[in-house]
């Protein structure tokens, strides 16, 4: 194949498919074992300074925020993040000084809520470096190539753009049609957290609603930690095998963390906490405010259950559950009318 163009972006998360096969065969156990552990232990064992990682979910939807806070608590540093539409997670990680490199499909913004003061400040001052651009579909197809054990995924996105010029993709002449085609390199993150609705002690996991790119991402992850709202019996998994989104042999750890996506949305269970996110957006306008937030919600609490108490406990979560069921109208402090 004739290579027409090569992106200048840094190639992160790459492995040769044979190297990937070897890694998977040696590190992913095909035997059933109890993988439950505390989040503290999972973060200690499976995340290292300098790693390149991705979070399951999307934006502020079904993201393992509990794991984000624990990484800050443990003081990880020099990490590179796959911003496959990363919103509150990347924001607090940048604020906490954990992430200094970003491969960016979408970051430094909060969708409808506006731009992120922390993320913008960090990139504009050079504290955080964007090492590559990509699109949302581009990112998930990088994970899909990895999930298929292939070196790349051919696609028709990003062609003709600066997004491609600053990415790690290459453009070739397609041998079948003769037309230019964008090849997205496989991406195997060092670790991935996926937050799910329920799973058993072996890691067999069910997701309600859209799966976004988590099925592919779970297969691409070198280390996969499942955080779950609820632990269920394996019999329930075996009675409904069509519901399994992630099978046990991909999973390295299982952490039971009710409300683990807060302040994000957990489809069917609770809506996003706009009051909390507005507090972050207000505080994060200054470095001092960022410190105040992190002290209040991360450093001064021991673990996630204590955080849940701090953000309003059962009463707040019941309100967010009612909001999710459309029983109360949404009040967004950042909206104007």
């Amino acid at each position, binding site marked *: 194949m004739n290579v027409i163009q090569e992106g200048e972006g840094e190639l992160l998360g790459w492995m040769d498919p044979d190297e990937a096969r070897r890694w998977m065969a040696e590190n992913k156990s095909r035997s059933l074992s109890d993988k439950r552990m505390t989040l503290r232990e999972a973060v200690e064992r499976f995340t290292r300074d300098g790693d390149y990682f991705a979070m399951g*979910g*999307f*934006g*502020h*939807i079904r993201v393992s925020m509990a794991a984000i806070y624990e990484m800050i608590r443990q003081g990880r540093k020099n990490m590179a993040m796959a911003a496959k*539409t990363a919103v509150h997670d990347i924001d607090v990680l940048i604020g906490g000084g954990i992430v200094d490199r970003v491969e*960016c*499909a*979408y*970051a*430094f*913004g909060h*969708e*409808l809520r506006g*731009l992120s003061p922390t*993320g*913008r400040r960090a*990139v*504009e001052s*050079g504290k955080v470096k*964007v090492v590559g*651009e*990509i*699109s*949302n*579909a*581009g990112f*998930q197809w990088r994970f899909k190539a990895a999930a298929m054990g292939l070196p790349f995924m051919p*696609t*028709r*996105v990003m*062609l*003709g*753009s*600066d*997004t491609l010029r*600053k990415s790690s993709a290459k*453009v070739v002449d*397609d041998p079948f049609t003769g*037309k*230019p*085609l*964008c090849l997205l390199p496989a991406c195997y993150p060092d670790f991935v957290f996926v937050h799910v609705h329920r799973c058993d002690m072996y890691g067999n996991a069910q997701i309600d*609603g*859209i*799966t*976004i*790119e988590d*099925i592919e991402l779970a297969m691409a992850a070198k280390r996969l930690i499942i955080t779950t709202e609820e632990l269920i019996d394996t019999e329930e998994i075996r009675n409904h095998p069509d519901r399994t989104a992630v099978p046990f042999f991909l999973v390295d750890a299982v952490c039971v963390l009710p409300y683990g996506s807060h302040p994000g*949305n957990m*489809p*069917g269970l609770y*809506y*996003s906490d706009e009051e909390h996110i507005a507090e972050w957006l207000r505080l994060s306008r200054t470095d001092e405010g960022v410190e105040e937030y992190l002290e209040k919600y991360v450093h001064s609490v021991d673990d996630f259950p204590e955080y849940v108490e701090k953000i309003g406990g059962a009463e707040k979560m019941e309100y967010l559950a009612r909001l999710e069921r*459309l029983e109360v*109208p949404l*009040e967004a402090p950042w*909206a*104007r*009318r």
Partner: protein
Amino acid sequence: MEYNLTELMACVSSRLLEDGKSVLVGTGLPLVSASLAQRLHAPNLLVVFEAGAIGAKIPTIPISVGDSRTCHKAVMAASMDYVMSCAQLGLVDYAFLGAAQMDMYGNLNTTVIGDYAAPKVRLPGSGGGNDAGSLCRSTIILMRHDKRRFVEKLDFLTTPGYLTGPGAREKAGLPAGSGPHRVISQLGVMDFDDETKRMRLISVHPGVTVEEVVENTGFELLIRDEVSETRPPTEAELKLLREEIDSAGIVLGKG
């Protein structure tokens, strides 16, 4: 009935969406527009979201293109791979886009203002914008109209419009017959000239002159021989927008 400019843009863009077609929407104004079309002339408009929801009947404005509201009464809760593959397969007719900068070929910048290595403003990046602009058949661009946004040269080309003109998309490998369809600003409606693929003014909103549009455009805008006046929002449209679709003013309250 009085209306603000965001309401006007929502109404004008919703009228472009035909019943029985599919549209990839972002949240915010595009979703308001698609919801309005669903409630008026296009009850069977197929609304798809990049994160995986297909065919929802939107009850209230989602904050994210992935949140649970995007699945309300949907026909399928799928994945990003599924939705983007549908777009690549040619099943998505329309997509909405917005940007910080746009040039005369409808190319868009949502990545940086200023120098890439030392940006004056770092914006979120492509998100699903490049994918929508690459893969969907026709894109509708919603943008504020001024010289800082309608520019001669982009600081960064995040999402392809017609690139450098006729045939450029196909030459780059993008799907044949795809590209920008309309631009709707707070001043008027533009299309793209068949021959040159350059942006062309086709209608001005009530109270706006052609000169005003030209003055607010940072590149040479083509002007159709007969520029019409945009039909203002109807009472029925405004009532739906204010009472049902965005009663909290999350999108339309911004004026």
